Each structure stands twice: as C-alpha cells, then as structure tokens.
C-alpha cells in the first residue's frame, strides 16, 4: 500500500516533467530528428574505421558501429545519472518549485526519483532508438544477453548517480559542484572505453582507467549484448562494478544527507 502511494507520487512528478517537456513540441521533434540524422554519419565513420580498430575490439563485439553505439548509450546514462540530481535541485531552487515540493509529506528519495524520472524515460527512448540502429545497419545483437546488459547498465547508472549525489551535495552547500561532475564525465568518457578499447590507451595513463567504473561496465555490457556471453564470462567485471556501486552509493547518499542538513541549517535550500 505504502509502496503504491510512493510510486504514485513518483509517477505524478514524472508526468508533470513530461507534460512540461512535451509542451515544447518543436524541441522534442528536433531532438529525435537530430539523433536519427547523427546516426548516419556515425555509421559511415564506424565503417571506415572498422579495419583499423578491429584488432583492438576483438573481445568486445568486433563490430565498431555496435561498439560505438553501446559506448554512446552508456555515456548518455552516465551524463544523465551524474547531472540529473544536481540539475533537478538547481532548477528547483531557481524556479522555487523545490521549496514547494519539500513542504509536502514526501520523502527525499521519492522526490529525487520523481525529479529525475522523466530524464530516465527520455534517455531510455533515445537508447532504444540507438540500439535499434545496430540491426538496421546489418550488425548483430545477442538478444539473449539483453537482460544482463540491462542489469549492467543499471549498475552503471547507480554508480554515477552516487557521484551525482555528491555533486548535488556540493551544489546545496556551495552553489556549485566545482569540477567534480565535469571531471568525472571527461575522465570516464576518455578512459572508460567509450570510443576505443581501453587496451589502446597509452600505458602511462592506462592505470587510471582501472579506477573508472565505466571501464568494467562497458566491457561487460558489450560482451553480453554484442557477443552474448553468459554471466560467468563477465563475472569479474560485474563484481568490480558492483563494489564500485556499493561504495560510491554509500558515500554519495551520506554526503547528500549532510549537504541537505547543512542547507536546512544555513537556510539556503530555496535560495539561489
């Protein structure tokens, strides 16, 4: 009963965000049109680079277009996870909606889930369209590996959501997340294996890739979705990703609670 009530609250917030976004019709149309158009040059570039990159992505799907699409999908969710809470709080503070929302008998996790829910739905639609481009381009997807892929993607999202919570805490206290979010996104994109395999990264910086959760998440994602490998084959990557998730979530949630308490003490919860 309580769960149903909380879900209703989350859905109500998602609905409000969706209705607001959908009221900007041209923006929605351009957004999806832009995505579809960008897939064409992406495919052509991937095809041109296929012979060059093929040796380095042998154990991550072999096909560069599929490799790139999964990398971009993961980046999409990383960006969403890391920015959505901070963006939701920042826009809520500047518009004044946050104070009104906080004054309702709604728990913080429910409010946050509701505030970021629409972004998640939007990204999922975009990701589904991007994923559909792989078979359309004549390359193969291991559909049986999709559930495992979704699980890995879920862990990636939780992992980066934790960093997002730390950023949101900084925003609540200092009105800026500092370099945390930009640095995490940049390092994860460049060293996490989004556009190329981690194996081609120069040896001097490669150790840094070992502390990037996306490295393990993406490798597992590609092996399950593009190669259809079973869970046993990606178990090490999965375990490392899970450890990252648990540790970062603990730190992220704690930091956020401390930040929120500070904001309530300092009276800055609703001041920009």
């Amino acid at each position, binding site marked *: 009963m309580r769960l149903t009530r909380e879900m209703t609250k989350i859905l109500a917030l998602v609905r409000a965000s969706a209705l607001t976004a959908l009221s900007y019709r041209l923006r929605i149309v351009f957004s999806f049109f832009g995505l579809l158009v960008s897939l064409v040059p992406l495919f052509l570039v991937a095809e041109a680079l296929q012979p060059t990159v093929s040796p380095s992505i042998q154990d991550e799907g072999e096909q560069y277009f599929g490799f790139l699409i999964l990398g971009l999908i993961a980046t999409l969710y990383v960006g969403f996870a890391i920015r959505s809470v901070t963006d939701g709080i920042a826009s809520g503070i500047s518009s004044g909606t946050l104070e009104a929302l906080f*004054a309702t008998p709604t728990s913080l996790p429910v409010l946050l889930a509701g505030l970021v829910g629409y972004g998640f739905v939007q990204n999922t639609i975009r990701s589904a369209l991007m994923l559909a481009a792989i078979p359309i381009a004549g390359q193969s997807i291991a559909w049986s590996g999709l559930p495992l892929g979704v699980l890995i993607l879920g862990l990636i999202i939780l992992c980066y959501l934790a960093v997002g919570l730390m950023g949101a805490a900084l925003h609540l206290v200092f009105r800026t997340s500092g370099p945390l979010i930009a640095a995490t996104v940049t390092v994860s994109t460049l060293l996490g294996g989004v556009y190329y395999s981690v194996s081609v990264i120069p040896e001097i910086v490669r150790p840094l890739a070992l502390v990037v959760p996306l490295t393990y998440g993406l490798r597992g994602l590609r092996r399950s979705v593009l190669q259809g490998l079973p869970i046993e084959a990606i178990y090490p990557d999965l375990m490392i990703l899970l450890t990252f998730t648990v540790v970062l979530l603990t730190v992220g949630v704690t930091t956020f609670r401390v930040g929120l308490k500070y904001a309530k003490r300092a009276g800055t919860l609703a001041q920009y």
Partner: protein
Amino acid sequence: MTPSVDAGGLVEVKAVSKRFPVRRSWKETVLHPRSTSYQEALHDVSISVRKGEFFGLLGKNGAGKTTLFKILATLVLPDSGTARVDGIDVAEDPMAVRRRLVPVIPYERSLYWRLNAEENLKLYASLQGFSGVEARKRVDHVLDVVDLGDTGTKQVGLFSSGMKQRLLVARALLSDPAVLLLDEPTRSLDPVSARNLRVFLRDRINREQGCTILLATHDAEEVRELCPRVGILENGRLVVNGRTDDLFEAVADNRYRLVARGRVKAALRQLGSVAYLEVDGLPEARDGEGWEHVRLHIPGGRAAAARFVRELTGLGIEVALLSPREVPLAEFIETLSADPIPAAQSSSVVAGCA
C-alpha cells in the same frame, strides 16, 4: 510522538533562535579565511497559537517572519529552541509536521507554468497522498473555492498575477491542513479579489473548517479584519504579542477625528481650556456644506469622548461624526516596535505569551 493539542497551543514556538551566515567580501575572506559572520534572523522567539486561531505576524521586511514560517514548514532548522505543531517537533519528525501544516509558498514561479491549473493541483494532490477520484474531487473543490473553476484547463503561464496567487492558495488547501501558513497572500490581488480571499479564509477555512492560520502581512485592513491576535517581530525579536484591537487602540492613544458644523473653532477653544481636550490642529478642512474636519486627543477613553460630544452639542455645534483615528500599519508597527511596554501596559498586552 503523541500529539497533544489540549496541552497547549496547536503551534508552539519556544525560545527559537536562528542566525544565518553572511556572505563576506573577497578581501575579508582572504584575510580571515576561517572566520564567519552571522546575521541574527530570530532571537529567543516564543509564540503559542491555539487551535482554530487566526494569528497575525507583523514586522518590517527582514524582521524574521519568513524565517519563522520556514522553520514551522520544516524547510529551515532552528539553531536553538523548539517549534512544535500539534505536539510534534519540526526538527524531529518533519514528515508528520508536513501532514498537518501547509505553507502557502508565495512565489508564482513555484507553479509549473507550462501546465494548466488542474495538472498543477493534481501533482500536489498526489504528493499529499491522494489519488484517483479523491484527488480529482479535491482539485475541483479547491479550484471552485478560489474561483478558478472555469479556468482549470488554462495554462498557468497565461494566468494573471492574482490568479496565480489564488492557485497557490488552492494548492495549500488540497489536504485540508490543520495549520495554514500565509505569507502576504493578497499582495498581488486587486481589492475585490483580496476582500473575497479574506472573507473566504476567515469564514470557510478558519471558522467552518477550524483551520488554524498564521498570517504574515503588511496590510492593516487584513490584520484588523482577520486576526484577533497579533505578534510583532522586530530585528528577529518578538516585541509584542497581544489582542489586535487593544493594540490598535493603544497606538491610536485616544485620538479621534471629528466632523462638525457651527462655531467649531470657538467651541473647541472653550472646551480645550477645561483641560481634558487637546486639539492637534484647528479645523483642518471644511467641505462644501460647511462641515469641518478636526483631529483631537481626548484622554480618558470612551467616557471622555461621550462627555465631549455632549458638551459640544450643548454649545450648539452639530456633530456628524466622532471616530477613533485609523492607525496606519506602518505607524502601528513602528510605535509598538520602538516602545512596546507602555503600549502593552495600556492595553493588557502580554509580550511573549508562550
């Protein structure tokens, strides 16, 4: 925690203090990086508001009214002291407090402008825990209550400022709260809408539904019409807390406005010489029909005023009106803030009654 309405006020604020860090200049930050400056927003404030009461909170800008409201609404934590709603500490169980107390967030931007009024209210009905038919019913009801029933499907961005203000009030009423916090609810309304909202708040929400209301306002008419009791905050301190009529009477200080016709000037001189009458100024205006308007000070309360009218008419003066002088709110606040104790003594006012 067990609610204890009968044990005291429904809203109990005891010795609450709050200070906020102040932004410092670059130079100061560099020279003294570890020090922090604070501004005191509330100092040792105690207020008790009974169940069903309509309590007014007055004060200049920055006096601490909004901070007190934010503490009660669980949006800001007090540094010291306690604030309880229905016996529940706002810092210990904010969720339970939010089920009983709803602030009218006065910012129009806190509405979703791209949605219509119904969609805005549906969202908040859900967040208050209502769904389906119940939510629908409550949305329709509050829209009717604030006279927005026929504009429910209109986009909020196209609303006038007054309509948005009414929608903000409607949003707060969705859950039939036990306590309503109103921060200048009529500031963007035209006089007729403002009066309608005041009547609605007093008759329907306060008297019929028994909702306890705390009102922060800068409108004298609003205070006199709605709030039998008021508190005045000055620089974060509660300087006065007492019955509104007594306070206004104390500030008016036996000053009256007289409208009379005849040899008014001479009569006033004659009566002034018997030493109970002080005339602020001799007839200050005369209208087309010969009625003269005079401001007077008649110490001795209503008995002295009655005696004055008797003697004036005895001197052949026609008296059309003798009424207590209207006290502007600014003067009311300034007088009581500057010198609360004499005013309080003259009108049985209790300062900091909690």
